[in-house]
């Protein structure tokens, strides 16, 4: 009798309704939609050639590196608006010691990660200790860091740009971790069997996969594992869902949040390390508005602004949409002025869709 009852009730949860309550669903659907749209409008412009794919993936990867930890932080119920300025600051932290003080690149990189991690911890401490909204606290850091970056750079170098990192990084042991390409062998082979086109001079149209794309995928997988399979992940959801309940059950909510602020700051440092080593220079204005782009990617990815619900995979789709749209608009020849309109609208639609999905998830099934 009981067994029958149980079976019947289990069956009543259809695969579909379970799928419909996944946070990534909207972003996955959005990604398909965007791909279809550009396949039709930009199908023969080279957007989906090997070169074009690498181009938009690189854009997505940079944003995605930020978006994955930002998603975790937002699920824990906090914002980090300082990541944009942190990118500019981190770039300077790598370039100035190397170019002006003669530090080896690897040391500057370690220095940069340590300082950024420390500032992230300060952000977290300030939020947790004061109980102020992280929106305000990190808005303060956003401005302070940008000001600090400008002041320091101009004070030390007399300019707002520091170049010449390329030459110094050439033989550095950590250089290939952040710049350059991987899988050149398989790419050449794919080209030989005709899956990837060749240039006029006979070389493959792409020479490898930029290392930033690997970082993006690895970080997304790591964050997903953390969120869904680790104890820490349980605490992230609880901290954002009902911090008081979590605290009563012995979850270290403050420590969880501070750790996440350190992670977002380190992600900004990673973003900067890749940018500085790829371009060979640092600029005080780098990373401007990246904090909002990351939030847009995360929200498109199905994470609730109020915390407690979301996914890192969703943030990856959000970043992918961002990259495809940005490059797609460029390839189709639409005036790029329209890009921001498109992304803003996309986010608003995503928020509406997400609240629908959440209500669905919360409804008795």
């Amino acid at each position, binding site marked *: 009798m009981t067994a029958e009852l149980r079976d019947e009730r*289990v069956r009543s949860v259809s695969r579909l309704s379970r799928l419909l309550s996944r946070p990534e669903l909207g972003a996955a659907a959005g990604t398909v939609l965007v791909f279809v749209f550009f396949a039709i409008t930009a199908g023969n412009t080279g957007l989906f050639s090997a070169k074009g794919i690498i181009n938009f993936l690189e854009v997505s990867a940079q944003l995605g590196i930020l978006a994955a930890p930002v998603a975790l932080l937002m699920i824990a119920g906090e914002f980090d608006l300082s990541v944009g300025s942190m990118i500019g600051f981190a770039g300077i932290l790598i370039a100035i010691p190397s170019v002006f003080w003669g530090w080896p690149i690897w040391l500057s990189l370690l220095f940069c990660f340590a300082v950024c991690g420390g500032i992230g911890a300060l952000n977290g401490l300030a939020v947790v200790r004061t109980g102020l909204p992280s929106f305000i606290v990190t808005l303060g850091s956003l401005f302070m860091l940008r000001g600090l970056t400008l002041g320091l750079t101009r004070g030390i170098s007399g300019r707002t740009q520091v170049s010449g990192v390329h030459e110094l990084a050439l033989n550095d042991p950590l250089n290939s971790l952040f710049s350059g390409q991987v899988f050149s062998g398989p790419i050449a082979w794919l080209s030989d069997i005709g899956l990837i086109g060749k240039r006029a001079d006979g070389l493959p149209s792409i020479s490898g996969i930029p290392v930033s794309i690997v970082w993006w995928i690895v970080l997304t997988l790591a964050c997903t594992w953390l969120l869904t399979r680790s104890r820490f992940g349980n605490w992230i*959801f609880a901290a954002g*869902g009902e911090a008081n309940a979590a605290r009563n059950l012995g979850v270290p909510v403050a420590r969880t949040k501070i750790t996440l602020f350190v992670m977002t700051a380190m992600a900004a440092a990673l973003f900067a390390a890749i940018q500085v080593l790829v371009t060979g220079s640092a600029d005080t204005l780098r990373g401007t508005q990246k904090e909002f782009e990351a939030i847009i990617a995360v929200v498109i990815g199905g994470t609730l602004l109020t915390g407690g619900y979301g996914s890192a995979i969703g943030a990856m789709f959000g970043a992918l949409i961002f990259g495809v749209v940005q490059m797609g608009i460029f390839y189709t020849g639409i005036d790029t002025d329209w890009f921001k309109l498109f992304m803003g609208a996309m986010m608003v639609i995503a928020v509406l869709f997400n609240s629908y999905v959440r209500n669905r998830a919360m409804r008795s099934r």
Partner: protein
Amino acid sequence: MAEPYVELRSVSKYFGSVVALKDVSFDVCPGEVHCLLGDNGAGKSTLIKTLSGVYTPDEGEIRVQGKPARFASPADTRNSGIATVYQDLALVPLMSVARNFFLGREPMRKFGPIRQFDTEFANRTAYDELAAMGIQLRDPEQPVGTLSGGERQCLAIARALYFGAKVLILDEPTSALGVHQASVVLKLIVQSKARGIGVIFISHNVHHAYVVGDRFTLLKRGKSTGTYAKSEIDRDQLLNLMAGGKELVDLEQELTKAARSSPA
């Protein structure tokens, strides 16, 4: 009667000039439901918080299994087998039943050097523990927000019992519930009692308390008006003892008088 698991002896608690509790004695034995009744402001909350280690008493002592005890923190109290289920239930609505069940005490499984949340164990245990209490989950991964109020209360109780509670302090577990849901929770209280758990049932609903209670203690303005075994008192006497019982009778008489004197 068995020896009390936890006992308050002549406990007083003051907040500045306010006397929150004065010379209150209270105890609960294994396999017993002791109801704590009283109006708002009677000192029920202070008593619960003293029992659960949030407050330390200014006078009197707490004994656990006959030995004097000092609770340094709520976690300390929990470790000595006394679990409090507050009205907010300490549940996270957007998280799954299984994840809530193990929140803060996650079961881990090893994969070589990696330790990860044992989803399968968590799901199975949460499902089985709730099934043992008569709650058939559709899916242990459904969010707690999809459960009814009674089911949530049961989840919080099942969780406390699973993690070794010998005494359950239930703060108004039926007050926000409809008739059917309340009866589910009352059934669970009786079941816990049958398992040898001591239950402290805080309520201002005499009807709910009388159904499941073995003993009744009334608090009035910070003082205990006495503890009665079920055999010593019936429901109406209990109702009259409760603040409001006499007032209601007076009000009733007044209204009848008024109705009689006014011409229809």
